[in-house]
């Protein structure tokens, strides 16, 4: 039985994309909340800024994931898992602090 320690292809590409998109999503929430014209611009895309935000996240995740997956670069599995966890925790803390304190 072989034991792989690296991730490649879609698992690596979409994992890296998930890191980027969860952080981007929190940054976009901050900008939408702080800059009214951005919120209006997002709302003009679908009729509601939150709907546009979610669709932007999903489209970005798919597009970035496909691009990164095609590079077929291998990533250290444990390091990528730590990056995904770090990005998700940082993004969540960023949202909580922004809406609770700012």
């Amino acid at each position, binding site marked *: 039985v072989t034991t792989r320690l690296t991730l490649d292809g879609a698992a690596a590409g*979409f994992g890296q994309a998930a890191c980027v998109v969860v952080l981007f999503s929190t940054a976009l929430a901050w900008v939408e909340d702080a800059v009214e014209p951005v919120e209006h611009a997002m709302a003009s895309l679908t009729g509601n800024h939150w709907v546009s935000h979610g669709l932007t996240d999903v489209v970005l995740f798919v597009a970035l994931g496909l691009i990164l997956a095609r590079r077929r670069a291998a990533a250290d599995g444990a390091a990528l898992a730590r990056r995904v966890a770090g990005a998700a925790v940082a993004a969540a803390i960023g949202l909580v602090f922004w809406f609770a304190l700012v």
Partner: protein
Amino acid sequence: VDIALSDLILFAHPTCGVLATLAGVWVIVEALNATEANQARTRRAAFAVATLLCLAWILGGYWYVTYYGDEKAIILKGPWPLAHSVFMETKEHLFFIPLILGLYLPIVAARNLARDRAARAMVVTVAGLIALNALAIEGAGAIINHGAKVALAAAAAVAPK
């Protein structure tokens, strides 16, 4: 019993979230005990997580866009305005984290988890993050509900009899 469509959607949204959380825990258990025999079951569970999170997004999003405006106005006039300004604002954006992770989960769960230690660690990490985020979101939902409830009770208390 006369149940409005808005109430059905409102109840279906957290139900999908709870089921996604349970499916996430199921994925963790399968991944920690990964063998050649349970691969198909693990992939089905990961797909269930993604599907249930997408359903929670669509149902919650429809309710939020269509009905939440009136409830938001009630909450903001009540004694718990933080139920909207902190908990709803955080919850509606926090949801995108488990959504993205949920879409990623079936991709990494498609690997042979019995042989692929890196994929197994990633599956456990991602499913764990989904479950923790979803629990926080369910808690925020309960606070938002309570914010509306105390606002309505406060309005009823001052209304002329």
